[in-house]
C-alpha cells in the first residue's frame, strides 16, 4: 500500500494551518470541566447520603434477616435424640453442610460437563 501524496495539495493543506488563540477556547473548556466536576461531586454526595439513609432504614430488618438466615443454616437436617452423637455430627448435620454439598456437586458436574 502506497501513501503517495499530491505535493500541490499537501502544500495547500500546510498553508491553511493556523495558530489559533488559546485563552477564550481553553476558558470555555475549563468552565465545562468545572461544571462536570461539580456534577460528579454532587452525584457522589447524593449517592453517599442515599446509602446512609438506606443503611439507617434497613439496619433492623437486615439484622433480623441475617439472624434468621444463620439460624436456618444451623438447623439440623436429621433430628437425633441422643445428645452425644448429635453433638459429634452437628457440623455435618445442618442445612449449611447440605447446601455446601449441593454446591460442591454442582461445581463438579459443571467442571466435568463444560471444562
Amino acid at each position, binding site marked *: *500500500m502506497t501513501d503517495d501524496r499530491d505535493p500541490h495539495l499537501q502544500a495547500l493543506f500546510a498553508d491553511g494551518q493556523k495558530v489559533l488563540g488559546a485563552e477564550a477556547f*481553553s476558558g470555555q*473548556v475549563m468552565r465545562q470541566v468545572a461544571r462536570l*466536576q461539580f456534577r460528579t461531586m454532587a452525584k457522589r454526595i447524593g449517592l453517599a447520603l442515599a446509602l446512609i439513609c438506606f443503611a439507617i432504614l434497613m439496619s433492623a430488618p437486615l439484622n433480623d434477616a441475617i439472624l434468621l438466615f444463620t439460624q436456618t443454616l444451623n438447623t439440623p437436617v436429621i433430628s437425633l435424640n441422643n445428645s452425644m452423637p448429635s453433638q459429634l455430627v452437628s457440623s455435618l448435620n445442618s442445612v449449611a453442610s447440605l447446601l455446601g454439598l449441593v454446591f460442591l456437586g454442582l461445581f463438579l458436574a459443571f467442571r466435568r460437563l463444560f471444562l
Partner: protein
Amino acid sequence: MPPAPINYAASPESLVVGLARSGNSDAFAELVRRRQSSIRNLMRRLCGDITLADDLSQQVFVHAWQKMAQLQKTDRFGPWLKRLAINIWLQHLRKNDALRDAAELKETAKATHDVSGVAMDLERALATLSPTARLCIVLSYHEGMVHQEIAAATGLPAGTVKSHIRRSTLHLRQILSAYSQLQPEKPT
C-alpha cells in the same frame, strides 16, 4: 515553607499528562492550551464550519477529561486525543444522518462543477466531498496519517480508505486547478 507552584507551561508533556490523569485541572488546562490549535484546525478541516468545529473541539477536550484515566501511556496523549477527535466527528456524522449530508454535498459538487473557471479555495473544495472521503483526505493530508492508521482510526477497510483518498485527490486536483493557476509561482 509552602511548596513552589508548578510551572506547567515549562513542564514536559508526559509530566503534565500524568498530573491531569490524577485529576489536576490546572494541568489539564495546560494540555488544552497546548493542543487546542491542532484539534480545532483538524475539526475545521473536517466540518468546514468554524462555530461547529469549536463546539466539537470542546466536546473532544471534555471527553478527554472524562476519560483521562483510560490513557495508558502518558507519551501517547497526542495520538489518543486525535483518535478522540475522530470519534467525536464520526458520532456527529451518525447523529446528523451522514447519508442526507452526503446527498446534499454531491449536489453542491455538481453545482460547483457547473461554474467553470471560478477559483475555489481548499475549504470550499473539501466541502464538495462526502463526509467519509473528506475524513480520509483530511487525515491523510492534514494529519499526515498513512492509510493503515486512517483505517485503524476510522474503522473503515484499508482498501476503502485508499480508494477514497485516490478519488478525492483527483477530484480536488481537478476543482482546485483554477485556483492553482491563480497562485503566484514560488521561487525554487
